């Protein structure tokens, strides 16, 4: 007996509206359909009606969790258009905030994953430790989520000695707390039973779907924009890319866990190597032209394309968020798994739906490879008779 289980568009495990239609036999998932489009906000259109400076704060709101990655990418791309280079100090400060954000994003994901498998105690403890990162971001940038830290040509705030000392102190606190959390996760037999071998994305499938970020790195794809195409000050820091082979939820968890350690290392290092000097370069005009920029957001490769026509309003801004690549790959992971694992598998790519909702995905089912013609579309939706 096959039944259809809807997960979403509104569902407790989903923080954002997305629709997963699962065809199940008993508890086994036989087919899955992912539908986006419940959260379209028209951000790209808005961007074409605002000045470059106003757009910084608009793109910050593309994603609540990786808001710094979005502004970094946007500002880098605009700097490319304008032909300016931010001062050294600003580059290191960008790394500082970006890595703090990565820690907070990964801890958030880890907490959510624990919540999904029902381990609320660890969930609360992880989020308790994450609070230190949030406090740091609040002190450094002035807000807990939408940091408004980047600006075109640099960053908007400097860090003083006191803040640097506090960051280092808190980094130790977080590292200690996180050590314990990781130990608890790795020790637990029930967690292992829930995440090991679940939702496997093979290397081949991962390549086929073109996944990015931790999802890709968990499937033996060594891709990280910070290494492949270094921006900000990443090429001057000493760090390692974390790659795992298995491609299951455990591997995705471990990739994020070890990335947190790398990020803590990078935060400390960027503060040690922080050069003196100004934090912003003046940008006065935006000559006609186009640019293409990418950064490694906590969820993967984030791409911006900007076309300028010489005015202070961009002619076109295109955003491709990492979740756009990753969400589609949920389908092969879901097949032959149970409903109980579906939210976990879906969450394992760390989907950020609001960021992604800019394009319509046309998902053709595996067996029915049928592309609808315009005529058929009109008939189906009652605009035209047969």
């Amino acid at each position, binding site marked *: 007996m096959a039944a259809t289980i809807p997960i979403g568009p509104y569902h407790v495990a989903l923080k954002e509206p997305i629709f997963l239609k699962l065809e199940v036999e008993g508890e086994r998932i036989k087919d899955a359909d992912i539908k986006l489009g419940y959260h379209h906000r028209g951000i790209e259109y808005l961007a074409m009606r605002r000045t470059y400076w106003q757009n910084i704060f608009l793109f910050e709101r593309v994603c609540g969790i990786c808001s710094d990655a979005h502004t970094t990418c946007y500002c880098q791309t605009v700097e490319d258009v304008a032909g300016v280079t931010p001062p050294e100090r600003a580059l290191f400060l960008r790394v500082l905030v970006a890595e703090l954000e990565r820690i907070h994003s990964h801890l958030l994901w880890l907490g959510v994953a624990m919540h*999904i498998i*029902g381990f*609320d105690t660890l969930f609360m*403890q992880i989020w308790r430790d994450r609070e230190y990162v949030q406090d740091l971001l609040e002190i450094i940038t002035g807000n807990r989520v939408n940091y408004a830290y980047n600006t075109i040509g640099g960053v908007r705030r400097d860090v003083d000695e006191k803040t640097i000392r506090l960051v280092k102190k808190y980094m130790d606190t977080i590292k200690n707390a996180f050590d314990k959390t990781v130990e608890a996760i790795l020790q637990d037999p029930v967690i292992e039973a829930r995440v090991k071998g679940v939702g496997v994305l093979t290397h081949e499938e991962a390549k086929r779907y073109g996944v990015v970020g931790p999802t890709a790195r968990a499937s033996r794809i060594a891709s990280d924009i910070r290494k492949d195409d270094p921006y900000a000050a990443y090429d001057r820091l000493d760090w390692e890319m974390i790659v795992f082979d298995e491609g299951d939820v455990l591997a995705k968890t471990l990739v994020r866990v070890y990335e947190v350690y790398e990020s803590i290392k990078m935060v400390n290092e960027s503060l040690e190597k922080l050069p003196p000097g100004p934090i912003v370069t003046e940008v006065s005009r935006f000559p006609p032209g186009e640019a293409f920029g990418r950064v490694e957001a906590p969820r993967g490769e984030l791409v911006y394309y900007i076309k300028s026509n010489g005015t202070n309003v961009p002619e076109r801004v295109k955003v491709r968020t990492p979740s756009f690549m990753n969400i589609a790959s949920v389908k092969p992971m879901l097949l032959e798994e*149970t409903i109980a694992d579906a939210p976990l598998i879906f969450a394992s790519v760390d989907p950020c739906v609001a960021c992604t909702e800019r394009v319509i995905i046309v998902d053709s089912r595996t067996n029915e490879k049928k592309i609808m013609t315009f005529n058929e579309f009109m008939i189906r939706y009652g605009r035209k008779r047969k």
Partner: protein
Amino acid sequence: MTDVMEVILAIIYAALYPGGLFAFFMGAMFLWSYRKLRARMQSRVGPPWYQVFADIVKLFNKETIIPKVAHRTLFVLAPIIALTGCVTALWLLPIPAHVLPTAEPLVSPLAFWADIIVILYLLALIEVGEIVAGASSASPYGAVGASRRVNLLLSSELPFAVSIVGVVIFMKTLSVNEMMVKQAKEGPFLITSVEGLDPMLYVLSVVFRICLFISFLLCVLAKMGKRPFDIPEAECEILAGPLTEYSGKLLGLFEVTNALKWFVLPAFTVILFIGGDTSIITFLIKCFVIVLILAYIDIINPRYRIDQAYKFFMKVALLLSLVGLVGEMLVLYAVVGV
């Protein structure tokens, strides 16, 4: 005259103390202490002591919505089935009513009416209520929740029954009342001895009884719907499971059942394994210890998947209870030769 007095006493016993309202209050307190402990262990503040009552009062003041597609009769009946099962089981439990210890335990006048098998059925009725609720609500989450509840009930009932059989064989009675009286005389079941049992065999026998106890506790966890067996109510997967479509007074009834469950199941555990109290105070303390054990297991565990839970009950819980039962029988055979 005495007949009338007995009836009045029985009514007071059933409605106020220690059945009925008192049990409900204690259940709510146990539920609160679980929530508070959980909150504190998660570095949170936790709810105030009256939270459970506030929830129930709120729910009873709210509008009850019955989905159009739901089976109306069953939908309304389900919480009543669950509550009936829970309350009746409560009445049949011999809960000591005296505040101070006495020579002869004063136990429920109603408890003489039935034996342990009836209680077993009545406790299953709580879960049946939930299954009916889930199945009748015409919600996919409810349906999945109900099917998981059935699965869990099927897998946990066997070790549950086997461990009870272990107790019954040792006690040589099916009446819970007699068990209580017997334990009051000879000490709690877990550590009591039989005449002519040599120390080595005694220790072995206690180990077997602990096996039964652990298996029983695991099944109680499943009956309470606590981690790692809170699969039917896995909020991240199927929202509230069987109770997804419930609201208002009907959900309030389920909440009352839930609060009562927090008293009935620990009390049942105490009566079977560490009973023999003649005073309500020691009885409640023992119940509280059981509540703490259950709560702590809930706190430090994530949730199993339903297939894993099934395997767990078949492999671990059933094995433990069978080992306990067979071992117990062998020991008794060696001593008494029955």
